[in-house]
């Protein structure tokens, strides 16, 4: 459905490659608060191509927000700002309606820019569970995720990535991707990460030291009171998967009290077969509905 929403971008004919594409811009903010033992909507703001949907969830006491880019993907020059904040004692779960596709950017447009700010107050729980980002040939995305937690707040976050569309024999020849994480607890930077892919991304990912020829990756973290238990549970789960040479490889460690997991996988299905049970284990329940639709 989203492929059809922007056909000219996804399958631009060579002769029309420089035709100006419409730029998408959007800003979405959602926050939760606790009332009568349940997390409720506190604030909601949406502008441009950024939409926050609030499906009725019948289980649990969390508020669920589903983020959607109504432009149906990202191209050069697009700009999105997302903010999700779990107020004191509340529980906010954020996911995306669908995978985010990063389409070919024209050279003069510069990369798409996405800034995400996540905050969790005292005793709050915030989950950042977007579906996959799919980087197509020619795609350019500069993304930054800033997480600020109160000392006793809990956080679960993930970013899954797919390079191209392997099922269709497509490889990413030229692309640019920046994915920066900055996680602060009580104002102190405790964990940072940066994924930098540039140039012939297919050739880069083929190297043994990078993706080892695989096209999917994910980074997942847990911070706060449950982080130590999350390392142990992740190690137990990941040890139950086949070892080197398998369709997916994943392992868990800890840095400054933050549980960190890296996964490399042969394809999107293999990635989900490892990532979904891990996230379900960490959150003690099934993934938000958009993941299974």
């Amino acid at each position, binding site marked *: 459905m989203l492929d059809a929403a922007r056909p000219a971008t996804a399958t631009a004919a060579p002769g029309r490659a420089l035709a100006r594409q419409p730029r998408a811009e959007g800003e979405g903010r959602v926050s939760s608060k606790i009332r009568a033992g349940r997390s409720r909507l506190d604030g909601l703001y949406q502008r441009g191509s950024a939409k926050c949907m609030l499906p009725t969830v019948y289980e649990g006491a969390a508020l669920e927000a589903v983020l959607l880019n109504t432009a149906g993907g990202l191209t050069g020059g697009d700009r999105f700002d997302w903010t999700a904040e779990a107020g004191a004692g509340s529980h906010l779960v954020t996911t995306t309606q669908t995978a985010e596709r990063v389409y070919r950017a024209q050279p003069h447009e510069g990369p798409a820019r996405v800034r995400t700010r996540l905050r969790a107050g005292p005793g709050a729980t915030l989950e950042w569970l977007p579906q996959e980002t799919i980087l197509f040939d020619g795609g350019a995305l500069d993304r930054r995720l800033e997480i600020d937690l109160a000392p006793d707040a809990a956080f679960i976050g993930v970013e899954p990535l797919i390079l191209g569309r392997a099922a269709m024999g497509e490889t990413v020849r030229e692309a640019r991707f920046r994915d920066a994480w900055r996680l602060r607890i009580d104002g102190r930077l405790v964990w940072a990460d940066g994924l930098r892919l540039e140039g012939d991304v297919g050739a880069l990912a083929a190297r043994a030291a990078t993706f080892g020829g695989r096209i999917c990756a994910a980074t997942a973290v847990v911070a706060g009171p449950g982080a130590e238990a999350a390392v142990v549970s992740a190690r137990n789960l990941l040890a139950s998967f086949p070892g080197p040479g398998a369709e997916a490889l994943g392992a868990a460690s800890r*840095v400054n009290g933050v549980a960190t997991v890296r996964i490399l996988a042969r394809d999107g299905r293999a990635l989900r077969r490892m990532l979904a049970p891990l996230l379900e284990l960490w959150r003690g329940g099934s993934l938000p509905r958009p993941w299974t639709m």
Partner: protein
Amino acid sequence: MSLDARGALLLASWLSPAYPVGAFAYSHGLEQAAEAGLLPDAAALQAWLEAILRHGAGRSDAVLLAAAWRDPDDPAPAELAAALQPSAERALEATAQGEAFARTTLAVRGHSGAPAPLPVALGRAARREDLPLAETAAAYLHAFASNLVSAAIRLSVLGQTEAQAVIAALAPVCEAVAAEALAADPEDVGGACLAVDLSSIFHETQTTRLFRS
């Protein structure tokens, strides 16, 4: 600033295996990669290390070293260098060597300062001694790569002569990465070496280990 004989000797002593930072004890996940069969020969090792220099901790370290050299009093490069770690053992590798470097450099040359991971501690010390940045960054990367090649010899990945050929081949890479890092935005750190990160994480639960990372 250009590198004179005094500066060359200072860098040589700071980056020598004799400087007591304990570099020999860290393999940056190489021990596990070798165990997993990812480093069958010298060519595989060279490709692995070149990727780390260009797309891994090598480049990030050089960017943070440069930021520390430019403003030795700025706490941000040390904070980012300590946080930008994929695993407990890689964090130990960066911070324990930095602390040991600072301790020795305080005792020998009277440099004092807040604790910082090795590339940041070195960048600060180089600035205090008026050492040129490009040469300091290139020499740091060369010492980093040489230390890992030395680890690979002990892991029986390759022999002494082959090892020197790998180091010779990586020297221009060190130079190029250092030059690129000087122009980079200090926030634009990170890389693509996810398999190297996974090796360091798997190393934490490896049963027989010579190295601390």
